[in-house]
């Protein structure tokens, strides 16, 4: 088991290296730091001195890959690739283009993101599974048919509509909770209720339909027929046999997104003014702060790969067949 985990972790290294090189190429090779400086300083009449200044302040004035001017190991380390890209591996994100410490910002902003994403995931899971089980229980009846129609309809509505509509109805017309904002501690709850509810509602369509397919696939299997032939009631069959076996794909689907919960949701957070990592990213995109976007790309990949790793591990835990192969 340990050997398996170590092997999987080693496998992640080249992938992260690939991500790192890709972001380096995207951010420094396709467009040179000079281009970035000109973009940031405003296009019209940029003096070369201003560009040089901008680059020096942010440490972009080094050569890309190989520094002829340095001596010893400095030839390799005193470069943009080493300073800006490879240091991401040690989670040293450096300063943003506007001069703030990215690592500190991230450590502050991941908690509000989590405060929304985690309840959305857990309660959403509960709602979707219960609804899907209900549909599976009443399969091939009108309840089944209309539930699927409802799910497809809900899937077809843009997520933006749920947010805008929810804000309008709950906050503006009914004045139940504030439209947007955030607070620390317990008083944050009144700001979190609406985004969480909207997140859950927005996920019902796709989630329920997917779980329904999983349940119906299990229901057609032989062991279920055996269970029924033994004379077990439909309730026992559904809850003790079908649900238990369908939990394997459900759980592994959940585990893979767990680390990514820290990244938050771009849209929800910016609509509700939550100071999480999602709105951090959006702000960075709109301000064209390349250092932050680069850091977030890398962080996102690390968390995704961590999710894959956790999925593999949880697979071996719940399904012993995987461990043998």
């Amino acid at each position, binding site marked *: 088991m340990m050997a398996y985990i170590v092997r999987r972790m080693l496998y992640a290294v080249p*992938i992260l290296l690939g991500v790192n090189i890709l972001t380096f190429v995207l951010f420094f090779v396709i467009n040179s730091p000079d281009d970035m400086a000109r973009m940031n300083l405003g296009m019209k009449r940029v003096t070369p001195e201003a560009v040089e200044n901008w680059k020096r302040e942010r440490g972009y004035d080094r050569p890309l890959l190989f520094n002829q001017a340095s001596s010893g190991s400095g030839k390799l380390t005193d470069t943009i690739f080493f300073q800006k890209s490879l240091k991401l591996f040690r989670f040293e994100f450096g300063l943003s283009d506007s001069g703030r410490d990215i690592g500190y910002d991230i450590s502050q902003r991941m908690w509000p993101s989590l405060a929304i994403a985690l309840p959305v995931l857990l309660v959403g899971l509960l709602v979707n599974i219960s609804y899907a089980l209900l549909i599976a229980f009443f399969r091939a009846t009108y309840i089944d048919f209309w539930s699927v129609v409802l799910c497809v309809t809900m899937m077809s509505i843009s997520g933006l509509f749920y947010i805008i509509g929810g804000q309008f109805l709950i906050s503006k017309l009914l004045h139940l909770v504030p439209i947007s904002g955030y607070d620390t501690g317990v008083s944050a709850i009144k700001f979190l209720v609406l985004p969480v509810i909207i997140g859950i509602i927005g996920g019902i369509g796709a989630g329920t339909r997917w779980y329904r397919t999983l349940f119906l696939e299990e229901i057609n299997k032989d062991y279920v027929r055996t269970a029924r032939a033994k004379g077990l009631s439909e309730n026992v069959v559904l809850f003790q046999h079908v649900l238990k076996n369908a939990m394997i794909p459900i759980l592994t689907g959940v585990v893979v997104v767990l680390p990514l919960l820290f990244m938050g949701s771009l849209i929800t957070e910016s609509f509700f003014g939550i100071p999480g990592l999602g709105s951090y990213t959006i702000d960075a995109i709109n301000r064209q702060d390349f250092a932050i976007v680069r850091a977030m790309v890398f962080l996102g990949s690390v968390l995704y790969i961590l999710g894959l790793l956790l999925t593999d591990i949880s697979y071996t835990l719940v399904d012993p067949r995987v461990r043998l192969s």
Partner: protein
Amino acid sequence: MIDGWVILWTDALVFLLLVFSLVFAVYASRREHLRAPWRRVARSGVGMGTLVVLAFYLLVGLLDSIHFHPSTIVTEGEKSQSAEVISLFDWMVTPLRVRQEKTYSAPLAARLYAKESMELADGRVVRDYPRLLFGGAHLQDPDREWGRDILRLSLFGILKGALVTLVLSNILIALLAARAGADFACQARLILTGKTPIPWRVVLVTLGVLVILIFWAAELAANYHLLGTDKVGEDVFYQTLKSIRTGLLIGTLTTLVMLPAAILLGIMAGYFRGWVDDIIQYTYTTLNSIPGVLLIAAAILMLQIYMSNHAEEFNSLIERADLRLLFLCIILGVTSWTGLCRLLRGESLKLREVDYVQAATAFGVRPLQIISRHILPNVLHIVLITVVLDFSGLVLAEAVLSYVNIGVDPTMNSWGNMINSARLEMAREPIVWWSLAAAMIFMFILVLSANLFSDVVRDAFDPRLRDTR
């Protein structure tokens, strides 16, 4: 009317895609194993009904993809070449395009949405809602005549639509009757009772509803702003119709862009295995591990830098917006080809062990031929299902991306841009809801039809589902 054609990059690709689809349709119609699933689609009521709706969207999108320079107004007997580029669709709905008001006005309104100081003929200044320049301009006294006028126009439009529907359905029935060799009344009875194998009744009803709606909308839009006007007074109905092309392009071109890479690499990985498989798997795992939105954001940021540093390379705004759209499709393709690639790899791994492929290998058939003759035709259904399933997700993604400012160009008509601007309007008092509603409704109908249609296609092609029924 026309002063030279303009072919934008996306236009060319759209028509290339159309040619591909036609070629595929001919190819599929000659092969029983591909025809059978399509026949199943044709026999499904939901499938045919949504197909009619999708065809309407497609028609608008295609008309909107034929661009040209309009010849400008003749000044002193001399035509001047204009830099303006419009599409055939723009030309068809010229009144909608040019009748611009001053600012916001509600749907079907005859007056502006905000009060303004106006000088009366006798020199007094009053604050009132001014009349619109075009919306309801034919009314003498809008307060009294408005309701009756709307009713009259609606009835007139619906009547026209009903007449056209009647003619269309008669033609269709006559054609079907001629093909079946039955007489008209007999065929009509079959269709109206829903006893034809292909659900023509559903087709006729959907077509009828659509045609009546179109004529109703056209009648009202000719005299009013059917869905109101936006901040700069542009007709919202026109904007949302123009957005259809953007939505369709994002949904289709993205898949077109990613298909060659996904098919080629997926099959190669599965067929050759070994180091080829390792490299391809490594490539898609790496790409896949970057969160899609962030990769798109990074790429679009880079494109923005490139465009602002090379502004001279783009002749017009519309060309610039067009290239950005194309680039967006490419980058969306880069983030979405991995799923299909993985599916194809798995399927090819299975197929290469199948007896007839083994036999071909034993006979010394070259790999390229095995792939093109034995493997590719057997994975086509997976490709097709993926293409259809991805479509609606991409249309929805466009709205979200445009909202984050990493979608299509802000000058381009798209549902995402409409929603984005509507966000500020929702905070106004009284609120301006029609831009948002228009974008949401048109997007919802397209996505819902696409979702329902893709379900039908998937059920028809998926052998696993077929067996259980």
